[in-house]
Each structure stands twice: as C-alpha cells, then as structure tokens.
C-alpha cells in the first residue's frame, strides 16, 4: 500500500502560537512545474492588529531581560537553526532556488543571528555617550528600545532576508511583527518553529504571510506601532500622513546590502538624555 505524504499546514506565528488567519483566506505557492507546494495564510489587517497586541504585551518583558540574556537567546536561535538547516535547504530548493545558493544562505542566516547575539550587550556601551556640559553635571545619552516594530522582509532570500530584518530589531529590546516574503513564504513559518523552540518569549517575534500592498496602509497607520523597517523598497510613498500620525520611525533597509551593521540596531532605538549631578569624592565624604 502506498503511503500518503503528510503535508505541513503553514499557519501564522502570533504571540508564540500558530493561529490560522482570522480571515480564512489563503494563497498558493507552486513549484517550477506548477505543482502545489503549500497553501499559505493570506493575512488580514486583523491578523496584523492581533500580532501588534501580542508584540506590545511581550515588549516590556523582553526589554527588561538583561542584555546578556537576550544575547544568549539570539545565540540559541542560531543553534536551533543550524541543527535544522538541512530541512530548510530542502524546503527552499523545492521553491526552485539553487541548492548551492540556499546552503550559502543558511550559513549566512545562522551567522547573522550570531553576529547580532554578540551585539546585544555591546551596542549601548559603544553608542551611548557622556556629553560635555558647562556645569558640574553629567549628561548621558543612552539608547532605549522604541517599542513595537513592523518589519517587511525582502521578497528574495526568504530566510536570510527575514532574519536580517528581525535580528537588529530584537537585539535592541524591541518586539517585531514581520511580514515575510510573499512568493517564497514557506521557510518563514518554518523559522517560526525555530523561534518557538529557542526561549524567545511568545510575542517578541511575530511572523505574518500575505500581501504587502494590502497590509502596508495598516502598518503605517497603526497608532501602537513605533517604527517601520522595510527591506522591500521605500514604504513612505503615499503613506506619509499615516506614518507621521504617531511619529513612527521609518527606515528603508532595502538599499543597504550590508547585513552585518550595528547601526541598524540604532534605527529602532530612542535616545534618552539625562542629567545627573557630579558627585565629587570630596562631597561624598570619601569612600571612592
């Protein structure tokens, strides 16, 4: 008797769970011969909204973790991805990508996570400053996460592209709602399985599949989203009013081919500047 293949149902990843889209809609991904590979959820604005609620709930807890702990968790993501790389390669080859290129992409994806894992406990030390003042005060500028970030992954390099928009955002203590590549979406949901197994708290990374043109206006106008980063061309055209409604940060990463770039972490950071009186050793009565 021939055995039936057991196909994976690709769903969304919201709040650490795998719900179907509330809209009940889907779109199909086919291989080069036109055979169906998978049906993907076609996310609606309500799915995006639910993801933002989950992201908002998770953000403060993620930001409050020690930088070192965030680093460990990002490294854990890299470990889990490495151990599953073979299945990712198979899955992406099925989409018609060349095996050699996909293997390279897997290596780069793991390296990207390790790279940003390293930055978790270093970027504040490197980029914060003690500013010159004219009085006996310290004046510090330090970085703080902006909050919930909507990210748009590129259409090509489905895994590396996805990770390269997620990693710098969560490194800085933000939570992220990311829209994956539309045509090559399968590996993004498989990556969600990696995320779920890597001690990343539910809601810190949320992954949607669907259509950018449909979702972009809602990403731009949502008052509880603090920043948008996109690796799929400038988003701002025609959406300026929506984006400024709550003064969102808006960065176009599609031109920066450099994946290893700590300044991307700063794109989703707010700078807090604060004063503190200088406490001299004399005033403190010694003890220094």
């Amino acid at each position, binding site marked *: 008797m021939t055995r039936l293949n057991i196909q994976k149902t690709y769903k969304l990843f919201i709040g650490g769970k795998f719900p179907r889209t509330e809209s009940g809609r889907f779109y199909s991904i086919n291989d080069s011969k036109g055979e169906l590979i998978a049906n993907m959820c076609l996310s609606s604005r309500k799915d995006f*909204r639910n993801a*933002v609620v989950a992201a908002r709930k998770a953000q403060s807890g993620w930001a409050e973790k020690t930088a070192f702990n965030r680093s460990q968790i990002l490294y854990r993501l890299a470990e889990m991805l490495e151990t599953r790389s073979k299945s990712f390669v198979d899955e992406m080859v099925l989409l018609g990508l060349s095996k050699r290129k996909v293997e390279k992409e897997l290596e780069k994806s793991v390296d990207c996570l390790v790279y940003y894992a390293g930055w978790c406990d270093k970027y504040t030390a490197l980029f914060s400053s003690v500013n010159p003042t004219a009085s006996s005060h310290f004046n510090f500028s330090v970085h703080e996460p902006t909050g919930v970030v909507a990210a748009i992954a590129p259409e090509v390099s489905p895994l590396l592209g996805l990770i390269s928009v997620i990693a710098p955002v969560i490194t800085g203590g933000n939570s992220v709602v990311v829209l994956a590549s539309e045509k090559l979406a399968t590996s993004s949901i498989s990556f969600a399985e990696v995320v779920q197994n890597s001690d990343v708290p539910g809601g810190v990374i949320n992954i949607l599949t669907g259509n950018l043109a449909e979702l972009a206006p*809602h990403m731009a*106008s*949502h*008052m*509880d989203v603090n920043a948008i980063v996109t690796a799929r061309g400038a988003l701002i055209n025609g959406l300026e009013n*929506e984006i400024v*409604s*709550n003064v969102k940060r808006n960065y176009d990463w599609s031109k920066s081919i450099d994946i290893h770039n700590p300044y991307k972490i700063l794109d989703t950071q707010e700078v807090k500047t604060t004063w503190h009186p200088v406490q001299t050793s004399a005033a403190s009565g010694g003890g220094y």
Partner: protein
Amino acid sequence: MNAAQLLVGFKPTPVDLLGVNDRITRIKSRSIKSEAKLQGLQMALNMIDLTTLEGADTPNKVRQLCYKAMHPHDQMNGIPTVAAVCVFPTLVRTAKEALKGSNVKVAAVSTYFPSGQSTIEIKLRETQYAIGEGADEIDMVISRREFLQGNFEYVLDQIIQIKQLCHKNKVRLKVILETGEIGSLDEVRKASDIALLANPDFIKTSTGKIGQAANMQVTLVMLQAIWDHYQKTGVQVGMKPAGGISDAKSALHYLMIVKEVLGPEWLSNKWFRFGASRLANDVLMQLAKQESGVYQAPQYFSKD
C-alpha cells in the same frame, strides 16, 4: 412576605452546562457589522460602572475617576458618559460633589464588602451611612458563609432588610452573589433565584476582589434566572457582570446575550451595567478606531 414565607416550596433549577457552553460559543462566533458595532460600543460605554475599590483610594483618586466618568474622551464628539462611579462608602461624598451637574450616578459597595462577614446590624448601619453620604445605588454582597451552609433564609432575609432600607430612601440595590465563591453553575442559579425572591434592582456576579470574576457562562445563567423571574412575577430585575471584562469585544458579546435572553427592554443602563475599570478605555479605543479607521494605542487615552 418575610424570607421564610418566600422560600416555601423553593426548588432549585438545574442548569444545562452543555447548552450554556454551546449557546455562548454561537454568540461569540457571530460577526457584528460596523454600524451595529458602533452602536453597541456607545451603549457599552454608557453602561459602565467605573470602579475603584482599593485600600489605597484617596479623595483625589476618586475625583480623577469622576472626571473620567464625565469626560471619557473629549477628543471625540458624541461620546456618552459612563453610568456610574462605584466607590467605598467613605468616598461617596467626594464622588457626589465631583459629579455634581452630571447624570453619572454614585454607587457604594456596602454590607462589609467584599467578604460580607459581619452582622446585619453593622451592614444596615453601613448602608444607612452610604445613603446618608448621598449614594444613588448600593452594591451589597450576600452572605456566602450562610449560603454554603444551606441557610438560604438567612441570606434572603438580609437582602430583604437592606432592600427595604434602600427603597425607603429611593436608592437602587444591586446584589452581588460572588459567583467565584459559591461553586458550580447550579449553585449560581440557586443563589440567583434566592436573591431574585427579594426583587432587588440588579443582581451582580462578583466583587472583583477574588481571582474568578464574571464570565459569560455565569452571566447567561443569571440572565435566565432573571427571565424566569420576570415571567413568573412581572418584576424586571437588572444584571451587572463585574470584574475581568476588559475588552470591547467581550462587552459586545455580553450585550448580544442580554438582547437574546432578555430582549431590548434590558439594553439601557437602567437595567444592565458592566462593573469594570479597564473596559472603558478599550471601548474608547475601538470607538476611535471606528471613527478614524486607524488602530489606536493606549497611551493616547487618559488612564482614569
């Protein structure tokens, strides 16, 4: 009639748990069109008893809450006020003064809230005090101690005495069953039936002071008890689920279930209330979403 006479022939009505769950599942999965949603949200806001019942309540905190009650979100036009502000008796006068000139009522919790572990003399005096301070409504708790021992006459007698005091002073009475402490849905139905014998103005699910607060199952059972009581006696009694209802969507579900079980006569703040502190802002956020088409963020809405 006294409590003993009212309880002659009292028979508990069993609750069909599967039926209750099934009905709720159906209500929850129903889609609400945007026009109905807008109306429902405005209605829900107008039914909220904005509540603060903390040991840390101060007159200024109550004043702030009262301002929120009268001005939920001035940035938008056509927003109704909430129904009432619910406080401890010692803060009634403060609330009454702060709400002067508005339609917002002042409700006071009474009868040794939230435990009810005291004597009837003390409960009556506390209620009298709250009324004297200017309360428009009294939220009393039933004696769970006696209910759990099967001493229904004691429970009913206390409700009757408090009710007489309230009605003599033209004050409306809500009876809190604290369903989280009385057990299964059968027990909830029993407690509702007993409380309804006294013809209070409202029956209410919870104090909000224990983990298990209002849910849809309990509310449905209490609504059915109200309906049966109405069929039998013609006396209309209101309903107030309290505690744990924090999002607009569930508020709409509650309104649907009220409309279905009791009908449109109950869909005003005279006969239906939400006891909640966080619900108001979520309803406001959804109203703003309906108006602007844009999903909102909590930091643009005043806290209390």
